């Protein structure tokens, strides 16, 4: 009990860092978590599919910088649907590995994820294959019977150019038991409102705001690769970072094809604890005494 109180107190007093995902919800850049830092965030999405009830999917994310070239994340997913249940839908464990030691005009990162979720998951952290609006309108009690143990790989390519961030993700996903390889993509472009920082510590400095746009969707399976009957989305995003590093993001998302959900609203908040590893080691080594 005493240790838990110490951990809770430490979370409040530990130095924060700027949470670093930028304005994107789906697209990854090659920015890695700083070694020893722990970022906690919640990514939410809500929508009302045709023929279904309004839902709210939420993914709680714990992202840790193991090394400067290796970032590991754990997601805990859940959802609630109007007039239905609120359920925990599973977990995901992902790892990202930076391949090249230096910055280049395009920078590759390899991403591997294991997910153990059920069919009721509505966090929509990626869109692959023929994922579409129909998946969101299925009753939770039925959908959660479907078990999804999947391995997902992404090739993340991204570049920084004169303040702009451009990222492209190519996604391949495979159910470990059966079903074909499924493919998808995500691309994102973002920029801070201004490039130079102000000297004052402020919440509303223009450098604290980033604007961006994301596009993502499914690309079918290895046997049926292409855009036919796939869902695609276009999503402007805005990110606001407070002076203490807390980051808020909002993204109205528009479905572009007949199989896409018409409109989704994504919103999230992130907070990063700088040098969590050092603080935790100190806490357990000497009880947090200075």
């Amino acid at each position, binding site marked *: 009990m005493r240790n838990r109180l110490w951990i809770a107190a430490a979370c409040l007093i530990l*130095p924060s*860092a*700027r949470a*670093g995902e*930028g304005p994107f919800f789906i697209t990854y*850049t090659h*920015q*890695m978590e*700083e*070694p*020893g*830092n722990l970022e906690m965030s919640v990514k939410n999405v809500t929508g009302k599919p045709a023929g279904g009830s309004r839902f709210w999917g939420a993914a709680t994310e714990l992202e840790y*910088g193991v*090394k*400067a*070239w290796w970032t590991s994340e754990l997601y805990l997913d859940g959802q609630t649907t109007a007039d239905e249940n609120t359920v925990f839908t599973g977990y995901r464990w992902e790892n990202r590995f*930076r391949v090249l*030691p*230096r*910055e280049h005009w395009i920078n590759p990162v390899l991403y591997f994820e294991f997910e153990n979720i059920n069919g009721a998951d509505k966090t929509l952290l990626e869109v692959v294959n023929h994922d579409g609006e129909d998946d969101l309108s299925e009753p939770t009690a039925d959908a959660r019977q479907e078990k999804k143990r999947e391995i997902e790989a992404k090739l993340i390519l991204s570049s*920084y150019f*004169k*303040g702009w*961030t451009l990222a492209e993700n190519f996604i391949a996903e495979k159910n470990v038991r059966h079903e074909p390889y499924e493919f998808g993509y995500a691309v994102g472009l973002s920029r*801070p409102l201004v*490039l*130079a*920082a*102000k*000297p*004052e*510590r402020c919440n509303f400095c223009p*450098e604290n705001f980033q604007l961006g746009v994301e596009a993502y969707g499914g690309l079918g399976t290895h046997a049926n690769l292409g855009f036919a009957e796939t869902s695609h989305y276009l999503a402007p995003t805005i990110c606001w970072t407070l002076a203490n*590093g807390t980051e808020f993001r909002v993204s109205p998302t528009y479905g572009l094809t007949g199989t896409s959900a018409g409109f989704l609203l994504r919103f999230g908040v992130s907070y990063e604890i*700088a*040098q969590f590893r*050092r603080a935790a080691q100190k806490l357990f080594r000497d009880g947090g005494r200075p």
Partner: protein
Amino acid sequence: MRWLLFLVLTCPILRAETPVRSAPARSSSKTNPFNDDEVARRAGAKLFSRECAPCHGAKAEGIGKAPPLRQPEVYQAAPGVLFWVLKNGSIFHGMPSFAHLPEAQRWEIITFLRALNARKPEN
């Protein structure tokens, strides 16, 4: 065998150079657009406390494996070399890349670092 020799000589994982020493010579030709600019120095101080201080210490004194930044190697380095280090990091030695910061913000940090070293160099 030649490939093995090539890897040993070039692979940055195996080389124990400091980030400043591993910067290419051409990086030193870049000049700081905010050189001696007081506003940029103050902005750099703010950015330093957020981006660098968690590892290098609030007074740049160095913590654990993160070296002190008030040292001859830093204040003798050309601004372009420090810019290169911030952009690339030294990811196999624990320092991440800060390329996600806009160039202007990286120069502000360097302006602060130069001023910090100009005031109280250790040696």
